[in-house]
Structure formats: C-alpha cells, structure tokens
C-alpha cells in the first residue's frame, strides 16, 4: 500500500445544477475505476451536517473539488468548512460543456458521456500530480 496521502474528491452533485450529474459521474469514475486506492470519497453535504470525519480529512489531506456550475458550491463549501481545495474544477470552464444542449447537460447522454470521460481523466491526472509533488 502506498504511503502517499489519499486525495479527497468532492463533487457538487447538484440536483438542480446543469452539470451536477456530469460532475458526479466523473467523480465516481475516478473514485471507483481510475484511482480507487489513491482517493477518498468525500460527501459534500456531510460538511454542513456535521461530518467530523469528512471535515477533518479535508483539513489534513489534499482535496479536489468538482463543480457543475459557476456557483462553485463544492469549492465554496469545502473552503468554508474545511480548507482550501488543492484543485478547483468548474465544468463551465470546459468549452465542450457550453456547446452541449440543455438536455445533454442535465442527463448523461452519448455526447455528454465523452465529457464525463474527459473530466474524469483530468481529475485523475490532478490526483497523480498532487501525490507526486507531496512526496
């Protein structure tokens, strides 16, 4: 088992947010498929509801926040209750996202699943980068 720190990934998962499903899906892909051993699942709502564990983790370990819109709930929520994320990703910064039709943003379809792949790859690369520099 690696002694490098785990990286927490916090997805906005917003239910009423155009990119909530894409951010959630990409985050789950990294957590489960791409970097299962290197990452920790962090539940954003638990920050507010009193997840001592989640908050404590995010205070001591590096985190990546993944937001589905410019309201940046994941980044703001994490900073507010724990610490500044190492990397803040906003789906709106992806040109591919703005060209999606509304329906393709909301629910993952073929066109949006490419973006999920791309986003997941980017998150995974950030995980590697963070862990390499923290050696």
């Amino acid at each position, binding site marked *: 088992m690696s002694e490098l720190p785990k990286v927490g990934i916090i*997805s*906005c*998962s*917003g*239910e*009423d*947010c155009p990119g*909530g499903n894409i951010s*959630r899906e990409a*985050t*789950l892909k990294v*957590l*489960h498929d791409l970097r299962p051993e290197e990452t920790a*699942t*962090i*539940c*954003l*709502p*638990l*920050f*507010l*509801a*009193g*997840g001592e564990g989640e908050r404590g983790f995010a205070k001591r370990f590096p985190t990546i926040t993944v937001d589905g819109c410019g*309201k*940046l*709930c*994941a980044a*703001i*929520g994490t900073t*507010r*209750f724990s610490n500044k994320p190492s990397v803040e990703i906003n789906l709106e910064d992806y040109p591919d996202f703005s060209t999606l039709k509304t329906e393709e943003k909301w629910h993952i379809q073929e066109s949006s699943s490419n973006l999920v792949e791309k986003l997941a790859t980017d998150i995974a690369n950030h995980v590697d980068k963070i862990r390499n520099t923290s050696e």
Partner: protein
Amino acid sequence: MSEAKKIVIPCSGIGKAFGTVSREATYQLTETGHQEEYRTVCLPLLVAGNQDAIDLLKKSKVYTIDGCPKKCATLSVERTGIDVTMEVMIPKVLAKNTDHKPGTVRDIGPNGVFLAKDIVNIILEEGSD
C-alpha cells in the same frame, strides 16, 4: 423556473447507493408529471451558504430525502433556520420493502428505482393534504 411551492431536497450522498436512490426519487418527482408542483434545489447551495436558495426555501414547503441517519439533507435545511415539512429516511422505506435492496451508488438497479418510486408515493401522499 416554475412557481412550485414544494421543494424536494435529496441528500445525494456519493458514498452509498441510498444517495443515488434519493436523487432518483427527486428526479422522478420533479421531472415526470409533478414538475408543476415540485421542484428541487441543490443541497450543495445550502452547504455553500447561498442566500437565494435559503430565501426560496423560506417561502416553500420543504421535503427532504435522506439516505442514512446522518440526515445531511434534513439537518442542512434545519441549520438555515427553516422547518422541514417532511423527511423521508430511506432505510425506513427499505425496511418495509426488504426485498428491494438497491444495487450500488453507480447503478441502483431496478430495486433502487422501485424504492425511489415508493419514496415518491410517500411524499405525494403527504403533499396532497
């Protein structure tokens, strides 16, 4: 945005199948036939302290769906000083449908969809008053 006065907020926990079930129930309620009456507001907005979201909740009946006893959705709403009209605790819903244990957080399977439907019914029943 519709003028819906009833707001459903799921926990959407990302670590457990129940989180995805809460989400599925919310989409069933807000996208298939009941959208005039029900809508959802991002729970993360409350975590981030978004004032618009809090103001909207103040004017509405709020229904929360929680996947575990940590009650993130309910507590997050209550901590903004707003009362929850009804909270649905998914393990309780499963307790009366023990054959419908959902799949995983990424694929809740037909059992998860079934549970979500039951949650929708529970909320609709209360909301019809």
